[in-house]
């Protein structure tokens, strides 16, 4: 099954949102990381300047730094900030308290007058370090001193991970809110289309005959055209049936006149004429019935089975009043059948006329819904239908007008009509004694 429009839009919105949020997260993460790194380096540079500011030559022309530094973190042994000053031949001139317990593998690379930053690590910890070499002028000439500061990377890493945690948390939260908003907007935006679909289902179930409701202007042309199509097909059907009715009237009345003339004559010719007229009449009946059967159509309405059944039973009950037939009608009010109303009249009319014609005193009509089909069962206590006649009736494609009258024509017409609805007819022997006909539609 293809994805619904709703799912398609939601899925694509979800993918776009995930990509957007992912990229945003990565860019922000990188920017923050660069920023923090830059800040850390600036901080280290500032530490170098501070050390330079406090350094001075003593009387012996040796560089000296105060025991207690301005930066308190350098004065604590378990600190994360470390600093030292060495000579060009790696002799330690000064080192901070925090250097005493920590061995830091400061890089050997330096270029005088330039800050050299690098990431270093001992076996336990990682550090960001800066090395700055400067030349100190003395009376005897010049000495090179190397200032080195290192900061534990844990500080930097914890800042980054805290930021990341916040960043992705917020991004996920915003994504969820956006998806919820998107879903609500989609549902609202697609509501008119859902309404059209509901209306179409209602039409199919026979609850309404047209698309109702106030649709937005984008789909009004569609719904208006659908309504016009529904109306025009109904009108066309009515016109077509009226035309067939008129044709039936103009054909059948002359046949009736001929029948009258034949009735008034006698002799051998009467039988031949009767037979021929009967054939003409059967052909007209069969072809008109075939032409007026609507058959299965798209968007056809489902109709209730019970009201039409009651009408036909009442009609036939009135006609066969003298037979005092007991009719058991077991059809639930809810049973719907997808058939055109006129076709249902013909279907039930032909079946029940046979039942009333052959029944002695009892007829049973029942219906049930089985696997999206409606099964209609009609039984009588008449003489039943002989096997050969059953076969002839059920032989599809055989023209019903070639059937002999009796059970034949009416049931064969029903069978023919069912062909157009992809339905079936089965004939059995009823427990009541007569015929049992099951229609599956």
């Amino acid at each position, binding site marked *: 099954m293809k994805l619904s429009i709703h799912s398609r839009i939601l899925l694509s919105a979800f993918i776009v949102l995930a990509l957007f949020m992912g990229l945003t997260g990565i860019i922000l993460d990188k920017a923050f990381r660069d920023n923090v790194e830059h800040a850390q380096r600036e901080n280290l540079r500032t530490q170098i300047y501070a050390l330079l500011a406090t350094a001075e030559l003593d009387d012996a022309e040796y560089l000296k730094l105060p025991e207690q530094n301005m930066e308190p973190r350098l004065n604590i042994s378990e600190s994360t900030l470390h600093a030292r000053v060495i000579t060009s031949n790696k002799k330690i001139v000064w080192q901070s308290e925090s250097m005493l317990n920590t061995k830091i593998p400061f890089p050997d690379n330096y270029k005088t007058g330039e800050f050299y930053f690098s990431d270093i690590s001992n076996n336990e910890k990682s550090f960001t370090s800066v090395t700055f070499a400067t030349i100190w002028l003395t009376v005897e000439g010049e000495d090179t001193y190397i200032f080195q500061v290192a900061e534990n990377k844990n500080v930097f890493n914890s800042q980054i991970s805290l930021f990341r945690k916040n960043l992705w948390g917020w991004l996920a939260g915003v994504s969820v809110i956006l998806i919820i908003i998107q879903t609500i907007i989609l549902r609202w935006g697609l509501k008119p289309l859902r309404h059209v679909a509901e209306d179409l289902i209602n039409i199919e179930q026979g609850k309404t005959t047209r698309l109702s409701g106030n649709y937005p202007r984008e789909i009004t042309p569609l719904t208006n055209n659908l309504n016009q199509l529904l109306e025009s097909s109904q009108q066309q059907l009515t016109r077509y049936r009226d035309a067939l009715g008129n044709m039936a009237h103009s054909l059948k009345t002359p046949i009736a006149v001929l029948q009258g003339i034949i009735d008034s004559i006698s002799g051998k010719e009467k039988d031949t004429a009767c037979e021929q007229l009967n054939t003409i009449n059967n052909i007209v009946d069969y072809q008109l019935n075939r032409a007026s059967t609507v058959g299965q159509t798209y968007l056809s309405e489902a109709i209730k089975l019970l009201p039409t059944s009651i009408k036909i039973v009442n009609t036939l009950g009135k006609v066969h009043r003298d037979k005092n037939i007991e009719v058991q009608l077991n059809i639930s009010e809810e049973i719907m059948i997808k058939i055109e109303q006129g076709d249902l009249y013909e279907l039930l009319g*032909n079946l029940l006329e046979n039942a009333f014609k052959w029944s002695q005193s009892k007829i049973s009509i029942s219906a049930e819904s089985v696997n999206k089909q409606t099964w209609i069962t009609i039984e009588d206590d008449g003489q039943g239908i002989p096997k050969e006649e059953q076969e002839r009736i059920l032989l599809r494609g055989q023209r019903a007008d070639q059937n002999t009258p009796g059970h034949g024509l009416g049931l064969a017409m029903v069978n023919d009509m069912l062909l157009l609805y992809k339905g079936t007819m089965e004939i059995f022997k009823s427990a009541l004694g007569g015929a049992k006909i099951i229609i599956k539609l």
Partner: protein
Amino acid sequence: MRLLIIEDEPNLREQLQKYLQQNGFAVDVAEDGEAGFFMGREYPFDMAIVDLGLPKLSGIEIIQKWRELEKSFPVLILTARGKWQDKVEGLEAGADDYLVKPFQHEELLARTRALLRRSAGVSQPVIQFDSISINTSHQSVSLKGHELVLTAYEYKVVEYLVMNSDKVISKTELTEHIYDQDFDRDSNVIEVFVGRLRKKLDPEGHLKPIETLRGRGYRWGLTQTNTNENDNAS
């Protein structure tokens, strides 16, 4: 029994009129819906045969209007299309039976007689009154098993009295029901028919099948004695 046929096709109309007249009915005809409705409203018919597809006023509308006016005579509809929706609508409108064109005249006659019997509350074609037996299918009357020789009008009088055995029938009513509209009527003839019938039906003078109620009319004086429920003619 007086019938009304409403049929717009002239050949069929004439055929049916002639055929039913030959079979002992007084028959009036109308060629369109309006004329037919008017006749059914104004004249005392025992039954009407109405085509559904009529000009000016449809068969169904005619029946509906008659029933609204409480005209209760039975109606047989003729339909060319034979569509079930038409049949159902016709019978819901108040018709009692239908025939699909073309039909055999014998079929029409049998249905007509069955409807007339049914409206008179008689279910079988042979009605027995003591030693008098009336066969409505054959239109014959027997006394002690011997068929009587009756004229068509004598039979019509007997049949009408029997079919309305619970009522007092005036001479005018009898005249209206045994003659059609075009007939030159003379109600004195009824007295002659009744006199002749009494002699034929009750030669010994002790059955008294036709009672005279002075100043009011006649009444069938016998009670039906057979109760056979089978109706082979319908």
